[in-house]
């Protein structure tokens, strides 16, 4: 569609100017946002929704930490405390962590990285956003309809007996599962069918390998939680008796069903974050990625091995010794691809020219925190130490290091990295650095004490705890408030940039992937002419342009000049 002739500024004072080259201004009004099929606008709606859910989940976390200030009652009763940690867990995992990077950064960046105009099924993309919204509303309604006090795992006999709104939460989780399936399906088909002409599988950016592996997991694992939650729903309303020991059911069977989904889903949370870190480290170190094929295949390996290991959550749950041994052996197979990735990232930084802008700070923070998260997983894969450490605060610290410390830090780093592209605004590096320091210090202050008390005998989900752990809990609570302060600083840095950030160049960090070859903020349908596809990490393709304070891609410029010459040539012929 030819660009609509610009009306002069003064004439249409009421109706703002429609500008095709900027997806934010290509249409106005609520309907243009709520019914949009543009993957970029859907990404922003997800960002706002997930941000609010993250705020809600975070408040629950602070309430839990406050309650644990003293060994007995501090602010709430036992029943309320159980509801607080359950809702913290459920909101954080189902509403925030599972969709976060694929839905926000993935939705925004994937089509552009492929050189496509949009995802394969735009209507489906909008549908999965509204399914996410419906699921989120379901969880918010659970807050008022009797809360939920089963822990985010809904373990069988207790979740069947309790009077809280388990059936409603199950429906919410089912709908969120559906939204996750549709996003996974959309991304998988887009990556298969809509890559730019010359972009083979091994010329795709690594974030796309991460998102592809994530969509494989979303497609194969999520239906199983759908049927599990469906059976729990039937159990609650019709007492169908699959998991209720009084009706001949078997609670450990529920655990198998639950963890067949819930272990691969932790890889849904971490793989996109790893993809984002690959993009940030290469761009910030001005270096080609080290070992592209190893990193790409390790994403797929993590996705596939992730399906063989769920039993390490059940070593002490009545699972047979034979199965525990098999699962323990297979669990160690998953740690190898993660190790490969970390070493390859370090090798990428070797001999680079590393800028310490906020995205790189978060990437290095990721290396540190994922290092601890991954290595503490070794304790839990080992059979006899896991018998002692299972369901203690050691586990709480471990999964916070991998989920919060790696997936969330990856998301925040990704936001800092793609912010100029999404909103066309730069942010103040000072505010970004302060937020990183606060988050980094607060996070470690919160969770290192939990490792210690976990190994010394502090069980999970305890309202009253043995008094000797009070000091650790108090340090942890202080840390959680520092962490909260850091997160709010990051939020302030983003909002501040929207109003006072200066105009961002098209390519501030000098990344070479196709998404950085669009304007910031990008065109309504991404590209008029798809730029030539180069090696995604060949840093020599871009050079620093002092005047626009950004990088310009040589190959794209050459292609445009050649095209311009070609067009002027045909105009001479037919004029």
């Amino acid at each position, binding site marked *: 569609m030819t660009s609509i002739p610009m009306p002069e500024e003064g004439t249409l004072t009421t109706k703002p100017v429609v500008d095709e080259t900027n997806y934010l201004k290509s249409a106005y009004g609520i309907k243009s946002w709520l019914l949009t099929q543009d993957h970029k606008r859907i990404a922003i709606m997800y960002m706002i929704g997930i941000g609010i859910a993250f705020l809600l989940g975070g408040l629950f976390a602070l309430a839990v930490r406050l309650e644990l200030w003293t060994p007995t009652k501090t602010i709430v009763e036992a029943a309320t405390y159980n509801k607080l940690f359950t809702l913290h867990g459920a909101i954080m995992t189902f509403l925030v962590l599972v969709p976060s990077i694929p839905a926000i950064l993935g939705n925004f960046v994937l089509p552009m990285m492929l050189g496509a105009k949009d995802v394969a099924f735009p209507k489906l993309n909008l549908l999965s956003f509204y399914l996410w919204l419906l699921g989120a509303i379901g969880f918010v309604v659970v807050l008022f309809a009797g809360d939920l006090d089963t822990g985010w795992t809904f373990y069988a006999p207790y979740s069947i007996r309790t009077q809280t709104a388990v059936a409603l939460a199950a429906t919410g989780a089912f709908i969120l599962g559906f939204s996750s399936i549709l996003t996974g399906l959309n991304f998988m088909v887009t990556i298969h069918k809509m890559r730019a002409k010359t972009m083979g599988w091994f010329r795709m950016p690594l974030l796309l390998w991460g998102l592809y592996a994530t969509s494989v997991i979303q497609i194969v694992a999520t239906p199983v939680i759908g049927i599990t939650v*469906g059976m729990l729903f039937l159990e609650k309303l019709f007492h169908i008796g699959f998991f209720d020991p009084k009706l001949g059911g078997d609670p450990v069977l529920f655990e198998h069903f639950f963890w067949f989904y819930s272990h691969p889903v932790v890889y849904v949370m971490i793989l996109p974050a790893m993809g984002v870190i690959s993009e940030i480290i290469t761009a910030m170190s001005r270096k080609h990625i080290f070992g592209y094929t190893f990193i790409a295949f390790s994403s797929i390996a993590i996705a596939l091995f992730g399906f063989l290991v769920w039993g390490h959550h059940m070593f002490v749950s009545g699972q047979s010794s034979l199965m525990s041994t098999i699962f323990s052996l297979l669990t160690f197979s998953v740690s190898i691809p993660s190790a490969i990735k970390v070493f390859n990232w370090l090798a990428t930084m070797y001999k680079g020219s590393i800028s310490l802008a906020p995205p790189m700070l978060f990437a290095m923070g990721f290396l540190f925190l994922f290092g601890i998260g991954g290595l503490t997983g070794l304790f839990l894969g080992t059979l006899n130490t896991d018998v002692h450490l299972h369901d203690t605060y050691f586990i709480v610290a471990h999964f916070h290091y991998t989920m919060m410390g790696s997936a969330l830090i990856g998301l925040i780093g990704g936001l800092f990295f793609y912010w100029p592209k999404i909103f066309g605004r730069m942010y103040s590096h000072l505010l970004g650095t302060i937020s990183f320091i606060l988050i980094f210090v607060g996070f470690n202050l919160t969770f290192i004490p939990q490792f210690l008390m976990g190994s010394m005998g502090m069980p999970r989900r305890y309202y009253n705890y043995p008094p000797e752990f009070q000091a650790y809990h108090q340090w942890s609570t202080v840390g959680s408030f520092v962490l909260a302060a850091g997160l709010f600083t990051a939020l302030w840095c983003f909002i501040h940039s929207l109003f006072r950030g200066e105009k961002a160049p098209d390519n501030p960090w000098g990344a070479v992937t196709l998404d950085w070859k669009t304007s910031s903020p990008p065109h309504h349908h991404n590209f008029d002419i798809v730029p030539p596809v180069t090696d995604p990490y060949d840093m020599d393709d871009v050079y620093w342009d002092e005047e626009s304070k950004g990088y310009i891609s040589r190959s794209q410029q050459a292609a445009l000049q050649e095209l311009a010459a070609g*067009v002027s040539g045909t105009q001479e012929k037919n004029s």
Partner: protein
Amino acid sequence: MSQAIDSIHGDQGQLSHEPHVAHHFESAEQQYDSAKLGMWVFLVTEILFFSGLFCVYAVYRSLHPEVFLYAHQWLDKGLGALNTVVLIISSFTMAWAVRNAQLGQKKALMINLTLTLVCAGTFMGIKAKEYSQKFEHGTTWGASFHPHDNAFGETHDGGELKKEDMPPNTQLFFSIYFALTGLHGLHVLIGMGLILWLLVRAAKGTFGPEYFTPVDIVGLYWHLVDLIWIFLFPLLYLIH
């Protein structure tokens, strides 16, 4: 640089677009391939969705084989076999309908779609009859499993069901039976809705050789529903 883009933008940017191809696809073939792959990936999620119930079946059949041996005699093998044949015929007419759509034979397409709907209706009718029989006997799922006296005595295929040798936990079989056939029945209903929607669009003549993707997609979904019943029938009805 942006001026260079604008000058070129005018004539070359607009691809020649066939009627049914969405703006973000380059060609009808790319759209068709994407739709097919998308459907196959969705079928994977359906397979995994049902695998949960097949896993429950496998676990409880291995834990309590005597329950399955005893309780399956309540099911009528004849009706089950009839239902399987009905679904196979509906699958056949559906595949035929896809062929008609590809060749643009509108009348044959509508006949086949209606035939498929009729078969699906018969299937649900037979299922409803079986369910009513179960409710009448009181052999329902889980906690509400209280077989009345009329449930016992002579069975469909000549066996003899005595109350005293009913093994404990027999309700497990019926929980699994109702879960599996209930979920499958739900999918048949969804399929019938989709085929009705196809029938309406076929009447308006939208399907032809250059645009038949929806018929193909609903056909795939329907064949999967038939595939699941093909596995479900022997597992529930033919236990010996």
